[in-house]
């Protein structure tokens, strides 16, 4: 298969289009602008293609709500501060059981922070993406190729379980170019039967809604949604990891690449280190982590944050193993030597 050099942002957009997403609603924010720009160029050339630069992130996510609610596959993308603005709409999308894909090309925060790469939105994505009882499947690519593969996967999960899905990447993955192949992505988009798009006198009326004033009804609705979440946990949880390592280094996204280099350095010095890399952040791959740490003496978690995924790691391990942290903030991507030194430290300690 022919490979082309592409930025992660552009590859994500192209993958979405190839899989049949013809509607995109966005708003400019660095470092995700290439997604919006790519869509603005490509979609008007496609029959039925829709591109709208909204008045705000809030506008964009509610256009997604309207589009998905009318039964049409669609997506939006943004970066950290913009995702905070989208939080309202994401909650409504979850409440109305609407599929869509939301891409977060993370940058540093809080506030305006920086436009440089960061992984400080892990908590937001996995624990508190909006008000109410809700989860959204969160995929964590670590290469431009995975920006493609996971975009395709995200639409599949979104539509199969009727839920918004987030791709949690970062400025590095968005801006970086790598060789990428689009393989045989199938255009499998179909109009959702529950879409409110005019009943045409042929079916009962469809209502897109998240309001249930009757407690019994809302409780039933939330329970039904959580049954779907259970199915997502069972079927969609994904991780890749080395087996039988003494020191397990857990990292996702960009940091997992750097960790891999660091682990190789450690192995070259005779330290039995291994990588644990969640590909889904919610659901967090608890079983896989247990398997990866079966014989481990300690776990190191590395993130471009002050430590967020580390909480899930500790909980998954039921606090039975020592878990330490190495992180960078402010837009710094850790280099392999820094992490290697920390692995060495753990190797000596445990």
């Amino acid at each position, binding site marked *: 298969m022919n*490979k082309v*050099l592409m930025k992660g942002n552009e590859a994500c957009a192209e993958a979405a289009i190839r899989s049949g997403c013809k509607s995109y609603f966005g708003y400019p924010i660095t470092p995700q602008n290439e997604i919006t720009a790519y869509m603005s160029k490509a979609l008007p050339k496609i029959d039925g293609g829709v591109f709208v630069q909204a008045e705000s992130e809030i506008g964009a996510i509610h256009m997604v709500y309207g589009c998905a609610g009318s039964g049409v596959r669609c997506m939006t993308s943004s970066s950290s501060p913009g995702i905070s603005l989208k939080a309202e709409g994401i909650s409504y999308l979850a409440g109305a059981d609407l599929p869509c894909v939301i891409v977060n090309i993370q940058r540093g925060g809080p506030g305006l922070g920086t436009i440089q790469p960061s992984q400080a939105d892990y908590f937001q994505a996995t624990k508190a993406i909006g008000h109410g009882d809700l989860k959204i499947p969160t995929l964590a690519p670590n290469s431009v190729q995975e920006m493609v593969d996971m975009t395709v996967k995200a639409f599949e999960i979104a539509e199969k379980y009727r839920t918004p899905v987030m791709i949690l990447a970062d400025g590095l993955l968005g*801006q*970086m*170019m790598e060789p990428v192949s689009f393989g045989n992505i199938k255009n499998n988009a179909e109009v959702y039967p529950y879409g409110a798009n005019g009943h045409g006198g042929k079916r009962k009326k469809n209502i897109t809604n998240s309001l249930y004033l009757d407690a019994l009804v809302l409780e039933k609705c939330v329970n039904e949604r959580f049954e779907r979440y259970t199915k997502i946990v069972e079927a969609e949880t994904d991780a890749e990891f080395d087996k039988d390592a003494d020191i397990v280094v857990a990292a996702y996204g960009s940091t997992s690449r750097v960790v*891999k*280099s660091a682990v*190789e350095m450690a192995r070259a010095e005779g330290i039995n280190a291994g990588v644990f890399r969640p590909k889904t952040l919610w659901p967090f791959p608890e079983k896989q982590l247990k398997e990866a740490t079966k014989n481990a003496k300690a776990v190191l978690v590395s993130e471009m944050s002050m430590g967020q995924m580390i909480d899930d790691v500790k909980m998954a391990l039921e606090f039975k193993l020592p878990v330490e942290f190495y992180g960078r903030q402010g837009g710094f991507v*850790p280099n*392999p030597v820094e992490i290697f030194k920390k692995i060495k430290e753990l190797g000596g300690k445990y």
Partner: protein
Amino acid sequence: MSKAYEILTAGFGGQGVLFGAKMLAEIGLLDGKEVTWFPAYGPAMRGGTCNCSVVISDTPIGSPVVASPNLLIAMNGPSYDKFIGTVASGGKAFVDSTLANSDASASKPVDGVEVFNLPATQLALDNNLVGMANIIMLGKLIKETGFASAETVEKAMKLVTEGKEHLFDLNMKALKIGAEY
């Protein structure tokens, strides 16, 4: 191409720092290597100093951020000052001497770094190739490192000038001037 290259290209925004880096990445891709290209982005692109990391390797690439390059292209004084000291021993640095005075700079390379000075911006002016100093620098780099075959370089140039075919010959001329300097 046999070893791993960690390349940093740096200069003013507008000098084609990212484009030159992309050309190197395309060459790596054509040679069947693992490749990453990662730009400094944001305000750095708007006329300040700009740089781009390219990693080319036989094995999967960890960090695409090059902290200690074995090949540096420095296209102006500030880039030379900032990055010359980061070049790994055994590495090579290519400096546009029209805009960077390596002798006058307080920053010095570590031992074992070979520095090539060439007045790329002046050469571009003299040859009616304004805006192609970056490609002249590439020509020199390719020549001095045995980076890739002439055939691969030409193929990569075809790729990066796709849709702007009139630029192909000019770029090839710039490569030649760099290589022959």
